[in-house]
């Protein structure tokens, strides 16, 4: 399979350093890093972990300084990839079996999806009944019984949250923001929201599936995912390589090999271990406690990536005003 192919590439004399900025959890990276060391013993691969916002800020600052500190990126969503592509910092890489990719990718090779995050709803099964709670994004914003006790991430700082409000706007219009505002939704980071769910301060939250899954597996948490009846919002996260003009180590060969590896079955196995879904159609295994990827894909709310970039400011502003107005 793919793994042996990669090994072959490796034997063809890769070397040097590769620095990868990623928003994947440190623990996950540690595992992946160990595997990579075996796969590419001659390449010195380093990860820099940061939240999406932190990384984007760091990258922006580095671009303004004239040089990036990395060679590859595994962060944010396709809209961010589109943006970077536009700024001319990415290197096109043609990978071999793109046919196996179940998700959209850049045909010129500037970015490929490498992991799938799903925006879902979650509640505390130890405290509430699923039946008593909203089961759709729509109800989440309109069911008064949870008013004041719901929470979501900040679209200003989180890429996936922005994608979510973009998708929901396309589906329900800007009224959806007003509805959220009326519900007195709390805007906070995922970790805080999860804690609130545990303590019962919140009844239901809008959150990435992987956060819940991880908590369930590691902490035996009773927090449970609700796949919204009006569709899950699926956010593929891209893998990108930086071109020689901007990259830290000018190691395109290695970057290419690493990209191949991540997209391979072997690489995807590691992604799934990190509670995210695989991008390959031939690797259907879902993460711990999740429903199969295909199941999810049956009912999704699509995100228009180009539009998300284009209307970013407008959506953020509208969202903020809607939320702030109903303090």
């Amino acid at each position, binding site marked *: 399979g793919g793994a042996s192919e990669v090994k072959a590439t490796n034997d063809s004399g890769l070397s040097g350093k590769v620095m990868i900025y990623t928003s994947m*959890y440190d623990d996950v990276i540690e595992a992946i890093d160990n595997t990579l060391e075996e796969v590419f013993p001659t390449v010195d691969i380093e990860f820099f972990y*940061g939240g*999406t916002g932190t990384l984007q*800020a760091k990258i*922006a600052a580095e671009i303004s300084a004239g*040089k990036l500190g990395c060679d590859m990126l595994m962060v944010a969503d396709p809209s961010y990839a589109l943006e970077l592509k536009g700024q001319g910092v990415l290197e096109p890489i043609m990978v071999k079996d793109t046919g196996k990719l179940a998700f959209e990718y850049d045909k010129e090779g500037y970015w490929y999806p490498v992991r799938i995050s799903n925006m879902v709803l979650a509640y505390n099964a130890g405290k509430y009944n699923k039946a008593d709670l909203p089961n759709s994004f729509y109800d989440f914003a309109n069911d008064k019984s949870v008013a004041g006790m719901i929470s979501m991430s900040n679209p200003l700082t989180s890429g996936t949250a922005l994608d979510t409000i973009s998708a929901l706007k396309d589906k329900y219009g800007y009224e959806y923001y007003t509805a959220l505002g009326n519900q007195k939704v709390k805007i906070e980071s995922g*970790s805080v929201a999860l804690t609130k769910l545990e303590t019962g*301060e919140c009844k239901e939250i809008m959150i990435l599936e992987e956060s819940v899954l991880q*908590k369930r597996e590691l902490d035996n948490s009773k927090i449970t995912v609700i796949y919204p009846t009006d569709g899950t919002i699926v956010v593929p996260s891209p893998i990108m390589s930086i071109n020689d003009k901007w990259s830290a180590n000018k190691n395109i060969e290695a970057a290419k090999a690493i990209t191949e590896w991540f997209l391979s079955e072997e690489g995807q196995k590691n992604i799934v271990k990190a509670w995210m879904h695989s991008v390959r159609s031939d690797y259907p295994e879902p993460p711990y406690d999740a429903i199969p990827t295909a199941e999810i894909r049956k009912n999704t709310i699509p995100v228009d990536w180009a539009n998300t970039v284009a209307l970013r400011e407008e959506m953020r502003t509208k969202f903020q005003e809607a939320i702030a107005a109903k303090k």
Partner: protein
Amino acid sequence: MRSSANKVSNLMEHQKWFLDPKWIIIGLIVSFLLIFQVFPLLYLVFRAFFSTGKFSLEAFKRVYTYPLNWEALTNTLITASLSMVFGVLIAFPLAWLVGRTNLYGKKFFRTLFVATYMVPPYVGAMAWMRLLNPNVGTLNVFLQKIFNLSSAPFDIYTIGGLVWVLTGFYYPYAFITISRAMEKMDPSLEEASRISGANPLTTLRTITLPMMLPSIVAAALLVFVAAASSYGIPSIIGLPGQIHTVTTRIIDFVYIGSQEGLTDATTLAVFLMVIANIVLYISTFTIGKKQYITVSGKSTRPNIVDLGKWRIPITAVVVIFALIVVIIPFISVALSSITVNLGEPLSKANMTFRYWERIVTRKSILSSARNSLVSAVLAATFGMIISGMMAYLLVRTKVKGRKIPDFMITVGSGTPSVVIALSLIMTMSGKFKINIYNTLTIMVIAYMIKYMMMGMRTVVSALTQISPSLEEASQISGASWLKSLKNVTLPLIAPALVAGWFLIFMPCFYELTMSTLLYSANTKTLGYELFTYQTYHNQQTASALATAILVVVFFINWLLNKLTDGEFSI
């Protein structure tokens, strides 16, 4: 005293014609500040004005006409001012009780009252959130039960709640600064008041308080700037209730991750810098000529105020205060570090030490701790050296432009961490011949820029208390300026130096925002670890780490206290 300071300074002016080590050192320090602080920040501000390539106020217009930003500005001013007022109102009497009276358990309280300073604010904020949220806050529920209330008595997600938490976390700045000054005061000045018929309280109000004014103003400044530029607390306490502050808005802009976002963030950050300096200006203006010498050339006997029959009641009040502000949130943090499910009460089944296990088994934690220790120690030490020199320049000389370093240092503190980090990335990664990106150096510098003011202000207020005649006596004994500084001035302000060092060290030790932007594979810090746990959707591990830090710092402090007889501890 002003006049004496002038006296000294007059001659300083003329000494500069000699190749005096003083001017070399001061020159070095000023150039350091210019290169590593002024230039990056200026560059950032410059970018804000030239966002489109040529000079424009476009960004300013955009940022400052947006109503939400205005709301954030007012919120910041309100919360920072209130925290400042309450912080000083709490810190002053506590400092007095601990420093000048026979309160029971003084030494213990002295350490306890700075404890909140030893945990990262965001961890503490989480604790308060769990205690006082209007839905299921533990304390709220408890009070509801006891007093049979129909609804929760407190809502933490309000301006009031924000001020409460900010005050709880930043009053130690004031406490440390004021208590250090208080302990040095000549007691005969208070005795003169007692004998004039003033009771201890009146004496406190009319003599001690005004004489402590430089320290109080310094303390207020620290609390204000710290509260106004803090991010952790407003983001956790303020945002859920839609209370935006300038810092949360700046972070919003920054994390947009675009060039425009950066510009907007800087543009907004300019406000904080300006505000910090207005406060500095007002404070130096109000105390102006009032620099009171309370350590004179004649030594008087140290004396403490006997609280008499009030001793027990006052101790009781202090205990209650400590319980509410320090103990309860700490216990809450400590307990959550061993709770599996934070939604359930702590029971045997719901208890675990695996979060502790995680922090002690995790590979990188030791090296991160070492990195944090090294960078915090370096930042605190260099920070104090610079603060000390600059404070001397400010208080004891009349050199033209001596206020500029003070101004620069204040700008640094008033700037949100994230902006400092970004400005350093932009300017210190080779574009301008200096490349210290991805080194520990850049972290140390970032920490210094952000926290140096804590040291500077503490030293300035301490220095104004020392009679210049003590330094003159050293000079006339044949000691050069540097030696006088080392042998006389520094030992006399040693408590303030220690306090200042600690005030810089502690926040650097668990610094989060800048660290997460500036760390590299080899320079991970504790702040980075905390950040990971925080976003790792696991408050418990963060709590465990915070508790561990607290315990270690407490232990070291206790040890130093024992070893140095209280000279080198907080």
